[in-house]
């Protein structure tokens, strides 16, 4: 089961706290370019958290000439820093822009879905999910959106009944 970091772009406010927390978690310093995730704002205000999806057939793994990328038992793609030579082939290969080179070591860094940043999100939209869980979330949202009126009616009916009884 693939797990990855996800934030709902309609909820995320783009504060970038998760970036700062991630860089602090791994490097004990504040530097968004050392974060394993990236918050991109599509102006004027849609914010998208970009993080590795640990793809089933991972482009980055296939692209790496040094075999520095591998999948661990939890299904997470891991960078072997000893093998990585910082050529950036993985950066080119990843269709999401979810893997980067560390600004000092020049080795690949990426989100490993450790979940550390999630508890700092002020709007509580950051979580580690599987595809299955993401689908459920989205279904829920669609239902709420599509059936807003129906739900309202049900609620009103419920309330009226309560009042009558």
């Amino acid at each position, binding site marked *: 089961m693939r797990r990855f970091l996800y934030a709902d772009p309609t909820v995320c*406010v783009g504060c970038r706290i998760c970036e700062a927390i991630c860089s602090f978690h791994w490097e*004990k310093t504040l*530097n968004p370019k050392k974060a394993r995730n990236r918050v991109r704002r599509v102006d*004027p205000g849609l914010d998208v958290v970009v993080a590795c999806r640990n793809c089933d057939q991972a482009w980055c793994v296939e692209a790496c000439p040094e075999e520095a990328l591998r999948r661990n038992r939890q299904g997470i793609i891991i960078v072997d820093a000893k093998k990585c030579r910082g050529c950036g082939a993985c950066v080119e290969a990843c269709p999401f822009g979810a893997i980067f080179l560390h600004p000092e070591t020049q080795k690949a860094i990426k989100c490993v879905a450790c979940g550390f940043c999630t508890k700092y999100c002020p709007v509580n939209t950051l979580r580690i999910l599987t595809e299955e869980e993401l689908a459920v979330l989205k279904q829920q949202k669609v239902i709420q959106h599509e059936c807003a009126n129906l739900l309202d009616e049900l609620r009103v009916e419920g309330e009226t009944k309560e009042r009558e009884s």
Partner: protein
Amino acid sequence: MGRKASLGGYAGQHLYVDMTKEQCKAVPIDRQFAITYLGGQGFASRILYDKVGPQTDPLSPENVLIWATGPFTGTLWPQASRYVVAAKSPLTGIFGEAHAAGHWGPELKFAGFDTIIITGRAKRPLYLFVDNGTAKLLDAKDLWGHNTNETEEMIKESHYDPSLRVSCIGQAGENLVRFAAIINDYDRAAARSGIGAVAGSKHLKAVAVRGSQDISVAKPDRYLEVIEELHKKMLDSPFTASRAQYGTTNLVELMQEIGRLPSYNMRSGVFAEYQKISGEAIKNHYLVKPRADYACLQRCGRYTLVRTGPYAYCGGSPEYESQSALGSRCGNDNLESILYGHHLSNLYGLDTISTGSTISWAMEAWEEGLITAEDTGGIDLEWGNHESIIKLIHMIAHRKGFGDILAEGSYRAAQRIGRGTEKFVMHCKKQEIAGQEPRAQKSMGLATATAARGADHLYAFPVLDEVGFDEEIGIRYGQEYLPEMGDRLNPKFKGIMVKENEDFCAVVESLGVCKYGTLIPPVLFYEDIVTTFEVTVGLHLTEVQFRQIGERIVNLNRGFNVREGIRRKDDSLPRRLTHIPAPEGPSKGQVVELDQMLDEYYEQRGWQLETGLPKIQTLHRLGLDDVIEDLRKQKIKLPQ
């Protein structure tokens, strides 16, 4: 370029930019300088005092324009996004500063610099590109004439990098409109003091920044624990939820409730049609989504969408000040025009407060028959004529026709037109008063009169007496001042409140953080700063030391202004607010008892009652002996 400071929090370097010679130079920040003035407003105040004096024309090459962040900018303190831009103001002729949030300030530090200090004037339009520890001036010929959003887009495109951050001026700054703003991240405005015109006068179109350098943390083992506590306190505050929902837009409703929503050029503090321009109206019809600046838990930023019609746009939402300035102040209840007018002001780089306030001055003069169609070139200035308001915004930015006169600000415009229009100028020290009708809250009246940059609600930002924060007042100022201090209509103890607030605000703006969370809601205070400073910067400064730094900065600002001739007589308000009782609403019958409050304020400050000059012993106690000496050389006799 340069070496890194040993202190945490700071990037460790000033960037000096000489526009005339087109040269950039990095200079390490002295440790003692950092401890004495902290950063942000403090740094800018000291540099400006030293480099700019009475002989300097604000729009000449000799003026100095300073961008400054603080040691908390770009860290995880809640709302750590702020920077200040300062210069001698072309609007007021005295100390000028403006502040903004967004992501630009943090990025400047990631690029390796705490401040940027601009001198001289280039022969051609240039923009500054600060790229990871390096800096260069680049040709801005193609950018000149473009609005702020286009400028930002074009710079991003030319560097193939949508993630770099831009702070820039629009046409208003280029055309030296005296209340032009500097805009970063598309719609975050460092608006006041006409700071954008100073950039324009130097032919500096923009400052683009990016970097991948650390903001180091002095005590990493304790850092997260401290930050977690701050975040928890912030998120637990009931105000955070309301801020997230409305930003500051629903202040329209709250201000109306206490008669503090200026309408019709501040004749009144209530606006009959307030519901049409309210936060609720924005939320129900135009709000798309709240949006946060760097490390912001308050997320008062938001963006809005007007789908169709002449005012269609999608972009930053106005906040309370713009709603009142372009709305109630001008008798305008057309919300779409307010949203759009605010957006236009961001595009052109205009301060909405001064824009709306200057237009409302003209509208009142029109009503009185003192300004006619002959002056305006046929534009009708009837209260609430939103089409005219929008037209004037275009004309001000381009200095076209009547807009050219308005571009001077209401004070100068009235001087020019005369005919008795002067008495309708709602200003202090030539800057337009913000949307805080002071007859309904006396502390705001005093704060407006004493603020260093001229009329200003933020220099002291007294808000705890607004709607009953008595408990917090007891904690912050002392139980002995209750109940009077908590009563917004009672002038008593407001001198103490404003003095303490000015000092605290100076600390807050010097650290590079927001007044939300520190002033309102009153969650984070000195003790939080002491702890966070220790784990971030690595130095233990006591609460007493921080308070003294705040006081030092305020006195330094006063020293600057005293050198420009500012005295007690200038710490004034329009007669309308001090002598004419509020005509209607919950604060009906009130005036601002300014003199009484000023006496108490000067007393607290250690300034002379009659003149408002700082006493020698006050400046000496704050370590400002060089200011005493400098003022003596300028033949200004300070009282003992």
